[in-house]
């Protein structure tokens, strides 16, 4: 391997097996993947495809059985570097109730920065910044457990952002949310990626969640099955069908129209946008 690669995540021939009493299950096999700082990555796969294992390998909650996971050149199986890795890479999980611990929103968000040993002024600044980023300033003094599901997930997101990570890994962060809260979270992720240049790695089994990704990685039975822009991946209907995935209706429409010889702009992300664009042709 050539030196330490800064500013990127590298998975080098990573496999992960879970050993049980009398059997062994392979969750991931021979994954090679490089994610550069600033990217917006979507990871798609059905249950048991290895998505959550991948997420937990990235911040060292799990160690690879073989191969290496490097975050800015630091290996996740090195005890000396794990602290620094977890400062670089923040995680948001499916159920916000599992990661909220403080009685007041403000304390919840200050918890991480305080543990970094930052001075109170800096902690305060970060709490302000993180609350503003997710649009929750007015909830600063509320109790997290009395908030709605969508609001809780925003608090969980803010508390991770307050650590100012370079990489943000989100494992099914919208699956407990109603459609409105879901769209809000996805919009925040886009902004955080574009304006704050934080790398987003968003994991979901719903293709619709991942349309903002610049690169979509499709996992199937522990291997990378397909990879490309959402448009490229969702073009190949047969290949998706073979593993039981349906593509978003938007991409069926785009393909139908493009087969008639009209070119649809890559920026189109919703059906109303598509209809509007077509009405203007």
């Amino acid at each position: 391997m050539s030196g330490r690669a800064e500013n990127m995540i590298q998975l080098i021939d990573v496999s992960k097996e879970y050993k049980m009493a009398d059997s062994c299950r392979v969750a991931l096999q021979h994954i090679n993947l490089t994610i550069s700082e600033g990217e917006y990555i979507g990871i798609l796969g059905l249950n048991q495809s290895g998505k959550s294992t991948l997420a937990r390998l990235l911040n060292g909650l799990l160690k690879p059985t073989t191969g290496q996971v490097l975050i800015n050149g630091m290996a996740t199986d090195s005890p000396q570097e794990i602290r620094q890795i977890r400062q670089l890479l923040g995680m948001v999980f499916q159920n916000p109730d599992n990661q909220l611990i403080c009685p007041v929103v403000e304390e919840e968000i200050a918890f991480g920065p305080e543990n970094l040993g930052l001075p109170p002024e800096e902690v305060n600044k970060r709490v302000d910044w993180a609350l503003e980023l997710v649009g929750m300033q007015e909830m600063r003094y509320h109790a997290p457990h009395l908030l709605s599901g969508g609001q809780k997930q925003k608090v969980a997101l803010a508390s991770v952002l307050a650590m100012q990570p370079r990489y943000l890994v989100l494992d099914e962060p919208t699956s407990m949310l109603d459609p409105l809260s879901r769209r809000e979270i996805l919009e925040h992720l886009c902004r955080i990626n574009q304006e704050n240049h934080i790398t987003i790695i968003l994991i979901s089994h719903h293709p619709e969640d991942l349309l903002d990704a610049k690169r979509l990685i499709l996992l199937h039975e522990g291997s990378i099955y397909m990879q490309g822009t959402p448009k490229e991946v969702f073009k190949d209907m047969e290949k998706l069908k073979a593993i039981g995935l349906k593509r978003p209706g938007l991409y069926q429409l785009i393909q139908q129209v493009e087969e008639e010889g009209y070119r649809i702009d890559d920026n189109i992300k919703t059906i109303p946008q598509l209809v509007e664009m077509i009405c203007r042709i």
Partner: protein
Amino acid sequence: MSNIIDIKDLSYVYLPGTPYEQQALKDINMVLNQGELLGLFGGNGSGKSTLAKLLNGLLYPSRGKVRVCGIDTSIKELRNELWKKVGLVFQYPEQQIFEANIYDEVAYGPRNLGLKEAEVKSRVYQALEKVGLLPETLVNLSPVKLSGGVRRRIAIAGVLALEPEILILDEPMAGLDPLGQELMLDIIKKRQEMGTQSTIIISHNLKDIIALADKIAILEKGSLLFYGEVAELLENIDILSRFHLELPDYLQVVYALKARGKRTNRDISNLDEAGLELIQIISSQKGN
């Protein structure tokens, strides 16, 4: 008896007279006929789950009346009778499985009804079949070894084995992957095809509900924003303008065209037809 559910001027207030007082439902009026499938749609905190608990007498109305299968749900003495008729499956029911094997799990309810073991057995087998599981291969397995989607179907079978007249499912699709969601849709459709049993599906996903329901109720902050047949909802531009991104994909196309004042040429009932419509619009615009 054709009205299986009859709700009149129903209001519900949590913790009345305390600083935490909260009106969860306001002046709800609703009637459901036997055999119909009602889709109850609303965002987080709209009052959906409160309404479900009022339907099977877990909560009593603060004001108004709820009658289910002719039973007034606020009469305590009739609650056992009510619970035999209304089966409620909570959100994430797989978390409340507790028996050591699948047979005992599904048999728990029927045994509590005091049925003979032969009758219990036939109900368990029928219920497992209804949720698409093969009873013979499964009954002795431990539920903990199965995936979340299968465990959820077992939990639902446990309620189906009570043979309720009304089945209420709170967010049956939540957290399932697309494959699991399709299986759940099939289970619900099959029940509907039987024709005489009623089902209520609570969901924050309008797409699922439109695909299944005869009637749709939309709750918002405790008030009934809309109640009627699916076709009526699709004609109601005011309501749709607020929820159009929640519609199934082909209806999103129809709505977007309508909202831009475009006349659509034919009845569009699926995504292929919606695509053809778009192509036709492009070619007619090029022609002009």
